[in-house]
């Protein structure tokens, strides 16, 4: 029996790491091109924004293929064990939990960011119909002005949520106790389990 925190192996395969970093890069470019003009830094942000948005859409589709064809949902679905973990953590208790690749906080973060990114991406794809590109002509007449307003509101609120989540993600990823997880997202190898006391390696 070995401690899960020291049981290492390939935590993230290269296609999943590539997805993570492509998504990270596009989210940084998208938030920068969206919010810097609002803060008064003027540049031609629209082409940068929609092109990086398309890259993000492709990355998300790739991730969904990986989820359905390779990973499955099981490791990321929250369950009673996650509630026990969070409750125990708040009460200052630790241990007695089944090993899991992702802990309750990682799952919570994943689903919060998944909802926000899907909301911003779906509304962003709809908003592509408001601009001319080399691939399509604009056609804003598909929706009423009021409906476009709703799309803008969802896009805006989800982008604010993403800004909040990105700041937290960067903070938690650079904490010394999470450095092994960060290294695993760069090089692949790292702790196989984010929580649990002991586990026999298969």
């Amino acid at each position, binding site marked *: 029996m070995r401690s899960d925190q020291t049981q290492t192996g390939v935590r993230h395969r290269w296609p999943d790491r590539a997805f993570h970093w492509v998504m990270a890069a596009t989210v940084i470019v998208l938030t920068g091109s969206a919010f810097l003009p609002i803060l008064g830094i003027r540049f031609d942000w629209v082409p940068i924004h929609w092109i990086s948005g398309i890259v993000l859409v492709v990355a998300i589709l790739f991730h969904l293929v990986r989820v359905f064809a390779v990973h499955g949902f099981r490791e990321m679905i929250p369950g009673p064990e996650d509630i026990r973990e969070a409750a125990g953590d708040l009460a200052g208790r630790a241990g007695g939990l089944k090993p899991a690749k992702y802990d309750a906080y990682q799952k919570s973060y994943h689903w919060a960011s998944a909802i926000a990114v899907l909301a911003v991406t779906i509304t962003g794809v709809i908003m592509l119909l408001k601009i001319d590109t080399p691939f399509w002509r604009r056609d804003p007449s598909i929706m009423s002005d009021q409906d476009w307003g709703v799309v*803008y509101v969802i896009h805006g609120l989800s982008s604010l949520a993403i800004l909040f989540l990105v700041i937290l993600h960067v903070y938690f990823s650079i904490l010394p106790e999470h450095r092994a997880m960060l290294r695993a997202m760069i090089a692949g190898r790292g702790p196989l389990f984010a929580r649990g006391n002991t586990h026999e390696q298969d």
Partner: protein
Amino acid sequence: MELLRYTKDVFGQKMLVGVNWELLWIPGAAAGLVIVVHFLLRARRRAR
């Protein structure tokens, strides 16, 4: 401070145009607050 921005269409009716970007500081402030609280709890837990 309002959450949403409105304008008036050509008929003078109120029309939704999006989120009020004057609220842009809120996600940063909220994230900063979570970070400070977590950092303090973490320091207290380590001191025990």
